[in-house]
């Protein structure tokens, strides 16, 4: 199982699911109507490191974070 956390204004509770790559997570979230407004603008981190490929391999216990558009300062 991996966990998915939705940071900042997305405001959703942590989700857990079976996934072997980030592509599995993408396919699941694409089916989620609540995520439609966020999915194209979020960066993605695995275990707190930003990633750039849907082929990123996932292991049991990994944490995937979705980071919506930012504005510090």
């Amino acid at each position, binding site marked *: 199982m991996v966990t998915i956390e939705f*940071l*900042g*204004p997305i405001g959703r509770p942590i989700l857990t699911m079976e996934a072997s790559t*980030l592509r599995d*997570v*993408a396919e699941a*979230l*694409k089916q989620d109507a609540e995520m439609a407004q966020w*999915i*194209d*603008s*979020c*960066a*993605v*981190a695995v275990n*707190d*490191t*930003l*990633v*750039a*490929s*849907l082929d990123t391999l996932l292991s049991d216990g990994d944490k995937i*974070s*979705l*980071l*919506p*558009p*930012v*504005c*510090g*300062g």
Partner: protein
Amino acid sequence: MLELHDGALNVPEILTRWYASESTSNYGAYIPFVGTVRDEDGIEGLSFDVYEPILTSWFDAWSAKVAPLGATLKMAHSRGDVLVHESSYIAAVFSPKRRVALETIEQFVEDFKASAPIWKYDLRGGERLYARERSTAIAGAGLLGSEQ
């Protein structure tokens, strides 16, 4: 050094403390940038969410980047509510000579705005409203919606 504070920053205390901490480090330049909440569009203030693990790794990467230039970075940011005319952000560069500090503070603050995992909300009428139109997607955003 990266500091996170609950609520508004105590700007005089932080700037003085940072100055004192490097007073014998032989730096010729200390250039701070202070971000203060402006009274505009009827807001009562701003509020911030911070994701500390990635903010810390982003800051550490910047510190490593400027170290060969002889520069040191310091940054403080607020979590939670910061009212109008209070300050939520301080970035500072110490360097042996002014040019490195002047150039670094601009690059650092611009990358902070584009990359640091911090989310801003307007405080208006008792509500906390995500400032989406003023926010910037982090480089590489949209991966989950892509067809790669």
